[in-house]
């Protein structure tokens, strides 16, 4: 094992351990109910999920394209979109602070927010 391998191996290992710790801290289920929907980094919707009635609504992107957002039993998810990969749909319900629902083609982010900003 050469010096280069040791150094690079150590850096990779540290990154990996750091990431595992960050993930464990970040990916816990959140009991927060305040959610913001951002498009092009501007908040377009902001609400308290526990007070929202069940519904499905469509968010149009200014660049073209849409995402159908569903609110059900105090949970939120994207049920359909016209993007090619549908990663946002497969992400499922919003669960933790660390994993926002992201639709990169439509620059849409759904994430938990602080109570004050709602």
């Amino acid at each position, binding site marked *: *094992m*050469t*010096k*280069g*391998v040791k150094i*690079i*191996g150590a850096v*990779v290992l540290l*990154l*990996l351990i*750091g*990431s*595992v710790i*960050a*993930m464990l801290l*970040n*990916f816990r289920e959140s009991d927060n109910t305040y959610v913001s929907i*951002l498009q*092009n*980094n501007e908040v377009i919707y902001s609400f308290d999920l526990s007070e929202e009635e069940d519904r499905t609504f469509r968010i149009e992107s200014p660049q073209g394209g849409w995402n159908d957002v569903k609110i059900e039993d105090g949970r939120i998810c994207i049920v359909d979109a016209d993007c*090619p*990969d549908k*990663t946002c749909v*497969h*992400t*499922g319900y919003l669960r933790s*602070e*660390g*994993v*926002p629902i*992201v639709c*990169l*083609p439509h*620059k849409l*982010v759904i*994430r938990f927010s602080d109570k004050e900003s709602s």
Partner: protein
Amino acid sequence: MKAGKLTRLALLTALALIIFIVELHFPNLIPLPGVKLGLANIITVYAVYKYSPKEVALIVAARLILGAFFGGNVSALMYSGAGAALCLAGMLLIKKVIPYRYIWLSSVVGAILHNTGQIIVAVLVVGSFAVVSYYPILIISGCIAGAFTGICAQLLLKRDLPEKRSDV
């Protein structure tokens, strides 16, 4: 560029493209943006150790552009492009200090850099740091995927390199 070399590079590009398209049909176990196995990078790692930097860049660029059109996701090109550029630069830099037995490590570094490039573009595109919270899971998935593709490439190279490289 000699016709023989051009043919070999084209063949590798075609191979990478086929692997890429086959992988598109795999169901994604972890449906988060940027998380995938990236089997086509077996060819990238192989080429990094087998051809000159310029030739590797040609293979990867051709595969990315063709892959974007074949896969029907052209907007993903900027993410994969930035990721691949960073990944290639890093792998070519550390190629000299990584002996052949540790090619898998170089592939892990490449995968992490690839994900770093993607996240940087995603931050610029979305205009928000919200996507950075994906970074830890991308690093973890990158380490696993990178190690896997790296081991595959290492096994390939072991059978392919001339005798003097018996230290593989």
